[in-house]
């Protein structure tokens, strides 16, 4: 056997042994689940042992039809789109502005700002989710601030009815005005509101102005509640806000790193030749970053598909399933109530399909904008 052949064989063996471990793990974790998903999505498998248990087989494409006919699927997809929109029109521009401010040295201490704005990315999403869930809850700090405002406002109105501090006189007209101010809370607190309220007021002496104020406020003041968050279209707002809060720093770092690749001499000489900042931005910075911006937008779409833990921790998809996104919608179909694995796998494949569309889009854009950033 010739020496060349021996070397070729050695080369081939080394290549195979070096690529194989990665390939096997990758196949187990990515390729095999996709194949499994394809099989199960057209089956009637209903949980339990997959081999040797209850028999299951081909059941057609009805699960796909079911998903596409399910309003909750479209609701979840729409929420995914909201996340993409917040990324593209919120995180990207903000991140770009921060990066620009730091890059053009409009502020000192570049490392400091960059470091601070990236902090939320470092924290576990579960921690972030539970933290903000508390902040937005009726018992959270927003509630405390809002209740304080309601209280002050209510007491100002009370003063108008009770008259100036120091003393007050109880009569039927005043009781009526108090009940008008109380609104529905009056009927909630008393069965015979006018009579009961009057006797309550009479139990205080005219000198107990402060006590009466407090008693009436505690009885009637409106309590803040984020009840508006139960509305479709509004319920996603806190989640979108947290996503903006959390990931803007990542785009800042991405943009800044690519701005720093621009040859600073080009900008300096353009400035010397009389170009102003707008022209520097328009003709140097933006064109250099076009690839990065496309890249960031694609990351945003991929990020929306991989979002799970944040919503799982903040709302679990509720209230009434209106904050579900595709991953939560899939999870709930597989693990909540009666598991429907064929349906969940059909959803998984729809998401994989969207990912593949994204990959094709990337390739097309790469051709247009050239090279990787």
């Amino acid at each position, binding site marked *: 056997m010739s020496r060349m052949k021996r070397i070729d064989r050695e080369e081939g063996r080394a290549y195979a042994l*070096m690529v194989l471990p990665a390939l096997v793990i990758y196949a187990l974790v990515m390729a095999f689940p996709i194949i499994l998903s394809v099989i199960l999505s057209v089956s009637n498998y209903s949980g339990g042992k997959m081999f040797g248990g209850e028999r299951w087989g081909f059941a057609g494409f009805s699960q796909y039809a079911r998903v596409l006919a399910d309003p909750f699927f479209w609701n979840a997809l729409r929420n995914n789109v909201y996340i993409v929109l917040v990324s593209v029109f919120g995180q990207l521009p903000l991140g770009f502005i921060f990066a620009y401010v730091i890059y053009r040295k409009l502020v000192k201490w570049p490392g400091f700002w960059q470091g601070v704005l*990236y902090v939320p990315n470092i924290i576990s999403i579960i921690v972030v989710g539970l933290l903000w869930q508390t902040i937005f809850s009726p018992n959270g700090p927003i509630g405390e601030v809002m209740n304080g405002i309601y209280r002050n406002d209510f007491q100002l109105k009370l003063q108008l009815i009770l008259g100036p501090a120091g003393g007050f006189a109880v009569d039927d007209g005043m009781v009526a005005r108090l009940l008008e101010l109380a609104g529905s809370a009056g009927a909630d607190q008393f069965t015979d509101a006018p009579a009961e309220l009057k006797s309550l007021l009479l139990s205080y002496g005219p000198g107990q102005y402060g006590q009466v104020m407090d008693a009436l406020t505690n009885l009637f003041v409106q309590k803040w509640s984020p009840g508006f968050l139960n509305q479709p279209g509004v319920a996603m707002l806190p989640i979108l806000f947290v996503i903006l809060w959390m990931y803007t720093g990542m785009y800042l770092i*991405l943009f800044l790193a690519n701005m720093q690749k621009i040859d600073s001499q080009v900008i300096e000489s353009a400035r010397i030749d009389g170009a102003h900042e707008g022209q520097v931005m328009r003709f140097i910075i933006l064109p250099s970053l076009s690839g990065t911006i496309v*890249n960031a937008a694609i990351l945003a779409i991929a990020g929306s598909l991989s979002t799970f833990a944040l919503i799982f921790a903040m709302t679990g998809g509720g209230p009434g399933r209106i904050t579900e996104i595709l991953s939560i919608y899939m999870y709930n179909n597989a693990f909540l109530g009666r598991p429907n694995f064929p349906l969940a796998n059909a959803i998984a494949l729809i998401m994989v399909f969207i990912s593949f569309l994204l990959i094709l889009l990337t390739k097309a854009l790469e051709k247009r904008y050239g090279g990787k950033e």
Partner: protein
Amino acid sequence: MSEEHKTTFWGAVGGKAAKSLAYAVMALFSVMTLYPIFWLAMNSFKTTREFQVSQLGFPVAPTLANYKGAWEFGEFAKLFPNSLIYTALSTLGIIFFSLLAGFAFAKIRSKATAPLYGSFIIGILLTIQTLMIPLFLEVNILGIYNTRLAVLLVYIGAGLPTGIYLATEFIKGIPSALVESARIDGAGYWRIFLAIITPMAVPVATTLAILNITGIWNEFALINILVSRTELKSLPLGIFKFSGSLSTDYGKQFAALVIGMVPMLAFYVVFRKQITKGVAAGAIKG
């Protein structure tokens, strides 16, 4: 700067007013970023009772009782070692297998490279969370549900596409002449990998470590479907326990959140520069 530019918006950029505005914007967003975290830490030292009365003030009588309670209820003494094991072994696995395959793709000529490397590249955009249901069923078929092996396999597999991409592109940049002259001297590929490539690939290995350490330490969605036994759970799973039964025991919940947050914040404070560089390098579209 010429006179006319001063009157336009862009001419004003770089002026005193613009600089003050820039500081104001950066300061505002920085406070918005840090205040919730500060608020959380501050309230973790209040009793639940005090929290309900005053959420925005400083703790009147700071207490560590929440931490003790959270540590015990969350069984963090079990979860910390688990998180360390998952993070360390997965990261090492990703680095090792990525460098190995990256070396083969970059420096050994083969017809298999184009399709294989391409398939890994596709994986960069295939978010693995999409596959959590079939993954859950798969680990059940394989009989490795509730094992560390399943967690490690999934974490390593999820990290490979980006890992292999970065490793291959980096190793391509190492002069082929180094490999060829070692070959002429009679060195085998494994020797070349260990003696030449690995020492030179420290920068890309660092990037991979940075990217994966934070990602795996904080990971929740996948491990949530892979294990259910406390002995195998990671910190994020333990912290999630505080959302249900203990969601009204704010003191303990906040302490748990701080416990979950501190290790990575410390890691960030120490390795901020490397993390920043790694994130910029790792944010690739494939």
